[in-house]
């Protein structure tokens, strides 16, 4: 008997009137866990009952504790007929199972009914007593902490990063069971909610077991998704990154607690070149009493990782089954997590300093499958096999890029009828082994040593003579020692240490393609055939838009392909930045087809002028003023018109030999857009129609906006959903494109307008999801957070205030002399032979890779586009000196704002805790002091009186508000005051206006936390800042 769950029902309030005659309610409560049910007494004739019940005790296995939610049902007692249900509350008790999370759940929960929405609130107390050492129980994994956050949570330290964990469970969807024909919608919805809750619990428990097996104690970047496969079932799957986390002791000052890079003046450096950058980087940090440098640091660091990996590459570039390339490494480091895991994948998007060495580029794989009924829910082998296949492919792509790991990894599906597109994407990368092995590193000092310089991650990891795809390489503009690509696409967040010029912005590529309606295999074939074109076009658009903004790198790239009956939607979102290390992008050159025609010429030159103007304007807008580089010979700026292959029209990776040569020494290349057909004209138009963000607004889909550091504490998380009906059925591709494009643009415009009071402000973590819920419907949902920043402060000030600890480490690091890392990368003649890898990497062409013979599962992979780097070290002073003015300067404003928010009128016995929600992993100006557990909630709402509820908009508006309310209530009951890494993973909306009905499913997740304002933490203002003596110029560069 490993645990006792105790629940107490205290009171209710704002209950609905259930008895029309008396305008009152005779309420009582059923408390159910597993198969045990308790009841409170009936509290007669009140809308605010005070049950004050005894403690209901459930003696249960901890396995059940993990799987089952506590189910609380509020009913109205009726002497003569059946009792009417008022509504339910499901409480996930998982947070109580971890000693470091919440200890009690206590508070007001909205009473939720799937038909009527929120109907009053109930006050509940829940506690858990665990009896035994839980580690002895095989089936449960109590105590493993889960985090949605895709970085190491703020008050923890990574001791080890074990690697990828995944699991999926399947079941029949209650909505499609025969019994659904005879039961009420309410019963059906509740069955579904409960089932998904159970499945989530089970999934989490199973993943927890895997983590324990690996020796970890936490899952970071936990992403759980549902696939509503309709007739064929319900799949709940999750991926995450297993870690061993150490809670940072609270005795640290906040600054040092997170600060990964403390003072380590170091003579050892020279002895251990690998560790050098960091060690130096630390020299100027403010005095940190806690750590001092240690020579041990460098000893543990294994340079051999990449080297051996490269060797491994040679052995088998093909879709090698196992972690072959790692074998050599493994021999050395038997504990390495990479060995244990079949897939060296990481769902993290930002990393402890020194973890991410080099980035290769985006790798992605898609596969089109035909769904069939899941016959045996206990053996979800088919689904497992599908994902296995995709992951293998991702792995081989990464190898082709000379990388041994994939970071920022995520998986998704799009389902339409019986066709399902599985997608996976990530960023190929080379990681330091430091967090992947147990031994050798003194954990106390783990963080201190290596700090990669602001440009190292851009250096290509692959062999320049054997590039996996055509790309133009130049010497790094920061260190000038190692090669960098001309553009870099990644799915991760901008590394905090990255040197960026100017500000970034949200870049989206949008595409709509019609598709003939078809069934079964035919449909799947049609889709697989379309996919490569879709991806290629999206890529082209991204590239064009990137150039138009005069930027050279994309972060947080997320491509969503959504399939409908008669169309495919593609939406790629990313944050464009100008990486100082990468070459300045050339302009965009338009080339006409028939140069003889004068009017045509004129047209072309007009367009060219427009484009040039836009580029100039954007440069100003995003403050992109890269230091002039002298070293490059200004060569022929514009390559000769190239072959007119449509596919290569505007592709940077164009493999035109001649231009390649031109470009290689003429860095000021232009990007040629050839106008050879109407499509191209459209493209250019769409390129220019993206409305600029209004003054005072910035936007990005990453955690942090490069170039903005001085956030205030004003933030507003929001969700906006739009559904458009295409009334003209016979739209062309171009027509559809325009519609879709306008849709997204208008949505953004509306957001800017709504949030105008927050200016200057940045929309961060802008997350678009598109869907085709019905034939002529397009649904776009956006979740993001608007954060105000303080315009007047200097960048440096702000930079401190945002996340001063981390930042500090970095800014200072930039200043340092970097010694070369002697990694033998270049020697690793990296035979990227893998025919497969190559073809997929470079091949936008759908090519001959016919959908596999096995018709039950069509696969077509379109592959990866890729951008890259190189492993090498570098010297050079790339940062410069910074002014570090006191942190406190940054705080007055946020503080002021927060105060005004709090200013209560005396009356407001405001019993409701304010709970902030944000998709980011942090809240500016605050420090997270405790993670209370994961929030993972699934709700269904249905109505049969759509018009009365204000139509579809009224219905969804209140449902979303209700979901927010329930999330906030759960967080508050756990004792928290914020949700970080909030994500609305699913919003499935279905309507039938003719029947006056609608149904919506929403799935949200996040981490419940307690934060405190930094201003409150640091009662003693001016912190000694040894660094403040330094002067500065932010323009890194030489």
């Amino acid at each position: 008997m490993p645990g006792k769950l105790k629940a107490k029902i205290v009171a209710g309030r704002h209950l609905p009137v259930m008895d029309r005659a008396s305008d009152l309610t005779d309420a009582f409560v059923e408390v159910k866990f597993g198969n045990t049910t308790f009841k409170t007494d009936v509290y007669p004739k009140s809308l605010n009952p005070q049950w004050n019940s005894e403690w209901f005790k459930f003696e249960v296995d901890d396995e059940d504790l993990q799987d089952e939610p506590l189910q609380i049902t509020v009913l109205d007692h009726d002497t003569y007929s059946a009792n009417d249900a008022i509504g339910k509350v499901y409480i996930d008790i998982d947070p109580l199972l971890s000693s470091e999370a919440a200890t009690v759940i206590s508070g007001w929960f909205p009473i939720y009914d799937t038909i009527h929405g929120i109907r009053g609130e109930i006050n509940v107390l829940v506690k858990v007593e665990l009896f035994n050492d839980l580690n002895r129980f095989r089936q449960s994994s109590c105590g493993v902490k889960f985090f949605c956050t895709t970085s190491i949570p703020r008050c923890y330290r990574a001791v080890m990063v074990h690697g990828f964990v995944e699991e999926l469970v399947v079941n029949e969807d209650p909505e499609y069971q025969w019994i659904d024909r005879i039961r009420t919608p309410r019963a059906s919805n509740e069955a579904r909610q409960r089932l998904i809750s159970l499945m989530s619990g089970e999934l989490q428990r199973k993943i927890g077991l895997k983590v324990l097996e690996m020796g970890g104690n936490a899952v970071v970047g936990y992403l759980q998704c549902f696939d509503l496969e309709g007739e064929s079932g319900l799949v709940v799957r999750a991926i995450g990154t297993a870690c061993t986390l150490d809670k940072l002791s609270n005795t640290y000052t906040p600054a040092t607690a997170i600060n990964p890079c403390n003072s380590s003046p170091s003579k050892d450096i020279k002895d251990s070149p690998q560790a050098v950058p960091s060690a130096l980087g630390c020299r100027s940090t403010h005095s940190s009493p806690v750590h001092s440098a240690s020579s041990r640091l460098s000893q543990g660091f294994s340079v051999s990782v990449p080297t051996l990996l490269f060797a491994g590459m040679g052995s088998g570039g093909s879709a090698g089954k196992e972690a072959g390339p790692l074998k050599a490494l493994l021999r050395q480091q038997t504990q390495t997590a990479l060995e244990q895991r079949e897939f060296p994948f990481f769902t993290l998007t930002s990393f402890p300093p020194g973890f991410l060495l080099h980035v290769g580029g985006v790798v992605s794989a898609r596969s089109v499958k035909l769904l069939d009924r899941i016959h045996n829910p206990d053996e979800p082998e088919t689904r497992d096999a599908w994902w296995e296949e995709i992951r293998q492919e991702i792995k081989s792509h990464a190898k082709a890029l000379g990388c041994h790991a994939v970071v920022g990894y995520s998986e998704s599906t799009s389902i339409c009828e019986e066709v399902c597109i599985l997608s996976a994407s990530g960023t190929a990368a080379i990681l330091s082994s430091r967090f992947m092995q147990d031994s050798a590193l003194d954990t106390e000092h783990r963080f201190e040593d290596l700090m990669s310089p602001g440009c190292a991650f851009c250096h290509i990891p692959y062999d320049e003579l054997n590039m996996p795809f055509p790309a133009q390489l130049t010497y790094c503009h920061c260190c000038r020692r190692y090669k960098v690509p001309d553009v870099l696409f990644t799915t991760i967040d901008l590394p905090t240490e990255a040197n960026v010029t100017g500000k970034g912005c949200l870049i989206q590529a949008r595409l709509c393609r019609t598709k003939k309606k078809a069934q079964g295999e035919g449909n799947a074939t049609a889709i697989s055939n379309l996919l490569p074109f879709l991806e290629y076009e999206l890529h082209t658009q991204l590239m064009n838009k990137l150039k138009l903004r005069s930027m050279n790198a994309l972060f947080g790239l997320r491509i969503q392909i959504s399939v409908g009956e008669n169309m495919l939607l593609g939406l790629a979102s990313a944050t464009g930045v100008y990486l100082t290390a990468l070459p300045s992008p050339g302009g965009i050159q338009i080339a006409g087809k028939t140069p003889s025609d004068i009017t045509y010429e004129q047209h072309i030159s007009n367009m060219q002028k427009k484009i040039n103007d836009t580029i100039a304007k954007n440069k100003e807008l995003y403050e992109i003023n890269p230091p002039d580089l002298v070293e490059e010979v200004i060569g022929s700026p514009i390559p000769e018109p190239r072959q007119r292959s449509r596919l290569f029209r505007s592709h940077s990776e164009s493999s035109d030999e001649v231009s390649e040569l031109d470009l290689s020494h003429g860095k000021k290349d232009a990007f040629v857009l050839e106008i050879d057909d109407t499509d191209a004209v459209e493209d250019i138009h769409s390129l220019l129609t993206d409305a600029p963000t209004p003054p005072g607004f910035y936007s990005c889909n990453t955690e942090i906006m490069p170039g903005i550091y001085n956030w205030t504490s004003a933030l507003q998380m929001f969700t906006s959903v739009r559904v458009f009906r295409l009334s003209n059925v016979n739209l062309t591709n171009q027509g559809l494109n325009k519609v879709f494009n306008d849709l997204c643009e208008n949505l953004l415009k509306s957001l800017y307008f709504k949030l105008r009071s927050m200016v200057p402000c940045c929309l961060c973590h802008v997350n678009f999801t598109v869907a085709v819920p019905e034939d002529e419907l397009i649904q776009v949902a956006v979740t993001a957070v608007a954060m105000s920043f303080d315009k007047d402060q200097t960048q440096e000030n702000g930079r401190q205030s945002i996340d001063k600890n981390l930042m500090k480490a970095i800014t200072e690091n930039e200043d340092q002399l970097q010694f070369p890392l002697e990694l033998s990368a270049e020697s690793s003649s990296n035979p990227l032979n893998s025919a497969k890898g190559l073809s997929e990497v470079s091949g936008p062409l759908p090519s001959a890779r016919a959908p596999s013979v096995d018709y039950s599962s069509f696969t077509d992979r379109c592959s990866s586009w890729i951008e890259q780097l190189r492993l090498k070290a570098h010297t050079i002073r790339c940062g410069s000196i910074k002014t570090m003015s006191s942190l406190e300067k940054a705080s007055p404003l946020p503080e002021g704002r927060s105060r005004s928010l709090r200013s209560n009128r005396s009356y407001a016995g405001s019993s409701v805790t304010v709970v902030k929600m944000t998709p980011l992993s942090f809240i500016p100006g605050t420090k997270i002091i405790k993670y209370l557990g994961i929030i993972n909630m699934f709700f269904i709402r249905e109505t049969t009186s759509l018009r009365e509820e204000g139509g579809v908009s009224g219905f969804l508006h209140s449902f979303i508000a209700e979901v927010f309310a329930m999330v906030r209530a759960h967080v508050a009951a756990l004792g928290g005051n914020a949700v970080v890494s909030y994500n609305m993973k699913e919003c499935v909306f279905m309507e039938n206006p003719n029947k006056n009905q609608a149904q919506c499913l929403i799935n949200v997740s996040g981490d419940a936390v307690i934060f405190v304002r930094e201003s409150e933490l640091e009662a003693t203002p001016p912190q000694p800042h040894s660094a403040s003596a330094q002067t500065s110029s932010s323009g890194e560069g030489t």
Partner: protein
Amino acid sequence: MRRMSMELDVFVGNTTIIDEEVYQLWLDGHSVSDAVRMRLESDALSECEASGEVLHSDTMDQYRTFQMCERLLHCPSKLANQLLFQIPAHRQAMLIERYYEFDHTFAREVLGKKLSKGTKKDLDDISLKTGVALKSCRRQFDNFKRVFKVVEELKGPLVENVQHHFLLSDSLARDYAAVVFFANSRFETGKRKLQYLSFQDFAFCAGQLISYWTVGAVDNMMEDMDVDLEKEFLHDLKDLKVLVNDKDMLDQHKSLVCYQLKGKIKAFSEMEANFKNLSRALINIASKLTNTKDVRDLFIDLVEKFIEPCRSDKWTVGDLTLFLTHYTSTAHTLEMFRFQILWERYMGVIKSCILKMYHD
């Protein structure tokens, strides 16, 4: 050509966004399309370059939010502990205050009427007459009714009750107290002769009556209601008749007043000539107040019997002030007059009411 139509369009913030300008448009009873037009025309938004489409979407969202909040606004204390909308406390206060604010022109029409269905039917006419949109009239009327219903049966000070239950500002709570008080006592305010009086005039008078003539006025304990005038007091007022019935006393009173005012007021001769009539008028009003019907006619009586004669004699406000001051104070020096406290309580209110009502 519009190739598509918006099927659904919502925006939900974790902190509920409230645009005060749109809120006012909603409160004023404008339709969405009217509101969009007005916002397009307003200067405030010109710098945002918002298109009609954007404004329409925003206005719809806001209107929906307000509609959802309205249920809560009916019981403002719920707004503070509901979970559905996260609204900072000061914004909650704004929402409530604005929701309960009313047009004085509208209130003037309803003042003293029974807050019943019958009156509700008259709202069309009131809307036409005052130019306040019917929707807005309905909201305001319903607010009156709601406040009335809640406060009617409560013990303790009226203003505080309103404030406590509806979380309103002090001044707004006072206005509501006036409305409730008038509705409860059904004071006549609709007569043509009373048309020149504004809501503010009446609200002031109501404040005076509430402060000095109700049970709560003398007894601070929360025992009785503040809504009704103190019966005992009204009954005692009959005793004041002595001031006009006793000829000696009347003469003595007159001479004392004349002595005090001689040379100080312009309308002295008129006053001297009219003193007995004026005094009789005030005392008669006092003595009749036991009768509910006469209580209702308090204001019309004051106007007809006192204010109009003074006005026709062209008394200035200064004259009137001096007269009432000395009229009140000299009574104390009358040897035979024993009702000093009663007199003070009566005349204090009457004096300030008359002075408030004495204008064109």
